[in-house]
């Protein structure tokens, strides 16, 4: 569907050029509007799509501006009106008149109206805060942990790093990979069944943006402590406090950073 817009823009430019040469301002006007519309819609190829309201505003402005432009000189304005006049009034143009004025335009008007009045059945969409603000401290199996600004305690134990990473790998592949993926890309074999989809850990926009304490907090509490803005009722993230020891939770945190080559954000 998207690929049709550059085609519309291109066709508009061609019509505009040809009609400018042939001194047919009405078709030139149609061509310019087509090129404008196709161009604005094609923005989506290299930037976020323009909102419908913005496009509507630009188009409305163009419709009036170009009418003014074509009506500056009387001679040109007469030429501009000629096609409309002929179709409407000229008795020899009966067939195009019936086609355009009595079939094409009414059908178009009816169709647009139908689109406006037909009730749209779309389930309520919810904006969702993916990474809500964590509390300053949490309890893990009854033990109070200050998670704000905390570094993974296992990182101090440099000699045992490899052991911890390997242990974290085991925890990951027995608890997490079903959803977050064998390759930590969020495409686990159960990922399709959940909404929201599980987050990937690869790439620079999830755990790379988060301090380690936050990741630990999300593992520990899962869906249970999410604020309403993060739709806890939809989240399939378990509260791993009940399933893993504190050390295991830190080990798997370490593993997901090591395995993806990401670094935790420092506070």
């Amino acid at each position, binding site marked *: 569907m998207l690929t049709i817009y550059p085609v519309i823009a291109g066709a508009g430019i061609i019509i505009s050029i040809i009609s400018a040469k042939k001194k047919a301002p009405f078709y030139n006007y149609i061509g310019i509007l087509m090129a404008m519309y196709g161009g604005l819609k094609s923005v989506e190829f290299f930037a976020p799509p323009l909102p419908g309201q913005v496009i509507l505003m630009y188009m409305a402005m163009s419709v009036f501006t170009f009418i003014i432009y074509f009506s500056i000189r009387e001679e040109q304005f007469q030429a501009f009106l000629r096609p409309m006049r002929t179709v409407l009034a000229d008795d020899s143009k009966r067939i195009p008149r019936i086609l355009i004025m009595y079939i094409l335009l*009414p059908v178009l008007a009816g169709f647009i*109206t139908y689109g406006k*009045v037909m009730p749209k059945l779309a389930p309520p969409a919810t904006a969702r805060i993916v990474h809500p603000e964590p509390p300053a401290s949490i309890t893990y199996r009854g033990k109070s942990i200050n998670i704000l600004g905390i570094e993974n305690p296992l990182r101090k134990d440099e000699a045992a790093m490899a052991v911890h990473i390997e242990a974290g790998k085991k925890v990951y592949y027995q608890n997490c990979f079903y959803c977050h993926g064998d390759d930590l890309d969020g495409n686990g074999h*159960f990922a399709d069944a959940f909404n929201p989809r599980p987050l990937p850990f690869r790439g620079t926009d999830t755990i790379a943006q988060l301090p380690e304490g936050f990741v630990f907090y999300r593992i520990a509490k899962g869906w249970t402590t999410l604020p309403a803005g993060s739709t806890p*009722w939809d989240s399939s993230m378990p509260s791993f406090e009940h399933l893993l020891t504190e050390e295991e939770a830190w080990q798997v945190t370490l593993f997901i950073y090591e*395995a993806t*080559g990401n670094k935790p954000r420092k506070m």
Partner: protein
Amino acid sequence: MLHDIGINAFHSKPGGNTVRKIVILALAMLLPAGAFADANKGKMLYDAWCAQCHGYEGDGKGYASGNYTLPQPRDFTKGTYKFRTTPSGEPPTDEDIVRSTQKGNPGTSMPPWTRFSDEEVRSIVEYIKSFDEETFELQGKAFQIGKAPSPSDALIKQGMEIFEKAKCWECHGRAGRGNGEKGWQSDFKNDGGTRAWPTDLTHNWEYRNFPAVEDIYRSITSGFDGTPMASFQTSYSEQDRWALSHYVKSLQVTRKTGSALTAKKVDTIPAVSDKKQWEAVAYIDLPLSGQLIFEPRQFIPVVTNIRVRSLYTDAEVSILLEWTDKRPNKGSDGHPADAVRLQFPVQLSSGAEKPYFYLGDSAHPVNLWYWRASDDQAVEFNASGQKENAMVTQEQNNIRVESEYSDGLYRILLRRPLATGDKNDITFVPDTFIPLSVTVYDGEHDEQADRAAISAWYHVMLEPPAPLKVYVLPPAAAFACIGASLFIRKKLKKLKT
């Protein structure tokens, strides 16, 4: 390089690093440089990204084996490979292992590994082969697959006859749902002694060796060594196998996912046996996951999909649930009964807020409609969170059920009055999106309580009859347009004269 891989393989096996490096360096001087680089890189990648399931020793006993995955990861030390382009009994070609690695195996925990270059994948394949060098001393001769003939009714009919003659139905079932009686037997096993289940040929997302017609041809030709799936390379001609492949392809259903189901209003709700009427009703497919949130968790759910349809009348709402089950179970033979559970919030909130998608929570109770194969009854429950004894059976039961199990397919029709007057029941109001989720149990695999396949929240909407303005305004706009044209034409004509 090490950083690309993520985990340093030397890192993961602490101790003796320096000594090992010196030995490797010495060995490297004796070998052609390329070969050495391959084997070493292959091991490093394998240890980092394959060993978690297939094991550091290649024995299929990685962390995610045992109860964590089904089917089990391949044991590379046995040298038996299911997915090949070689005759039965011969080892796979390198391309075959490359294909499984790069494309994965649908319906299993083996994902497509697309992050690695061809060269990297080949180095992994070399290393995998080294777990069983004896097998690969022989080189498998790949058969040619050629171009698939285009499907025709005649070809599919020929394929159907072969499906009959070759007794494919004995295991895969008459409708191809993997429910043949041979597959029910306790001695239906893989070489390693693990229980085997025939593929459900209607689920194109569960074909381990891929669902395209060329893939089916490849599977039929090679057979799956080490499993009850035999090779048909010598028993049926190439043309016969293509015909059979097209027939099998024609059994596949189209999965249609979506976030909401709309229910049309009808005068009477058709009976469950009225297949023709129900087939014309719009549906959505809900992909299912194991219940992984609360202990005991279900890592290896059996039912992967449930199809939902809905219709309503002035008085009643009905929901039809369909899913495949290779062996129905009524709770005999020491297994629990098959069951299905529909879940709705008791109260609809005006905002986005809902009960927790699995069994609700203390502030937001859910209304459950629970059908069991054991007594073929549906009962109403309430729950406010997953806890033992948190489920409360309602005294008054308003659900009517019609059930059917036929050729591998469960079809359960649940009906209830739109409103019951019970404050613990969901009230159905047209023109409202009502959250719905589903839990399914396969008794044969001992699923019960929290060991189940579950879905996320979806919505069902009882579609209101279209408002009058839909029929009035569009023609009005069209006529207004014609009127305006006539008016302008009149004016112009006047100007001219």
